[in-house]
């Protein structure tokens, strides 16, 4: 059994208005060192797979087919044995 932790964010070319609003909030706190806020989603799944390679393949397919919309989102993931 493997666990995948997937991070989905808007593609860099898309203005992340939520990120901008949060960035403004952070700056209002005086934390001007913080910039380029991007908001995304984290999805955790377990995968029944014999090997890490198979777990990655299944995770990749789940991301491409449903979890992320490639028109507007990018995704990355990590896979670990549990």
């Amino acid at each position, binding site marked *: 059994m493997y666990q995948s932790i997937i991070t989905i964010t808007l593609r860099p070319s898309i203005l992340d*208005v*939520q990120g901008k609003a949060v960035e403004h909030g952070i700056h209002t706190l005086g934390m001007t060192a913080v910039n380029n806020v991007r908001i995304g989603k984290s999805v955790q799944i377990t995968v029944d797979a014999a090997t890490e390679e198979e777990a990655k393949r299944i995770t990749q397919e789940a991301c491409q087919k*449903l*979890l992320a*919309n490639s*028109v*507007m989102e990018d995704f990355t993931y990590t896979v670990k044995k549990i």
Partner: protein
Amino acid sequence: MSGSKLKFGVVVFPGSNCDHDAYHVAKHVMRQDAEFLWHKNSSLMDCDVIILPGGFSYGDYLRTGAIARFSPIMKEVTAFARNGGMVIGICNGFQILCESGLLPGALLRNRSLTFSCKHIHLRVEHADSRFTNAFTAGDVLSIPIAHGEGNYFADPATVAALEENGQVLFRYSDVFGEVTDESNPNGSINNIAGIMNAGGNVMGMMPHPERACESQLGSKDGKAFFESVINSFIEHNV
């Protein structure tokens, strides 16, 4: 089509909330036949036009429209659309059509980050489509919007193709038909409010024409949208 009436099929997903409005307009305002199609149906009941209505199908979980496209009926809707059947997606229906790949692009969060519910102005871009033939190009309509994710986005090549092929049917404008940034309620690229596919049989729009078909509701400007759809069948059958 039975007799001289069209049969509109209004798909009902869990969370649809404009299904009755669409049904009412088809049946009682336009005097056509109409049928509700539960999302678990595997038949379109011989409907001539399919409407995916507004609402919050599956609670907008993951992304708007992302889960609804896996409903059993969407297999039938997709096959129907691929065979040239007329499919209309309004608001959440537009989001579902984009998620299912029947229309290009995606709907992002409004740039204001707020849910926007108000009457806006729309400019009709082309009057030679099956969805707009009862309008005149340049007409300015008053139609309500009600959405939080209506910010149309597609990559530059897709947008250029939509513009070049005349697939952009409606654009947000001011009352004079000027397309300005101030009149863009959600940040949509090129003020795009409604598009159709390259085949001209599938269309999606964020504004709600079904909420603007009777004077009691403040505007009848949406009626010509449904007239256009009906006209297109009469022309096809002549």
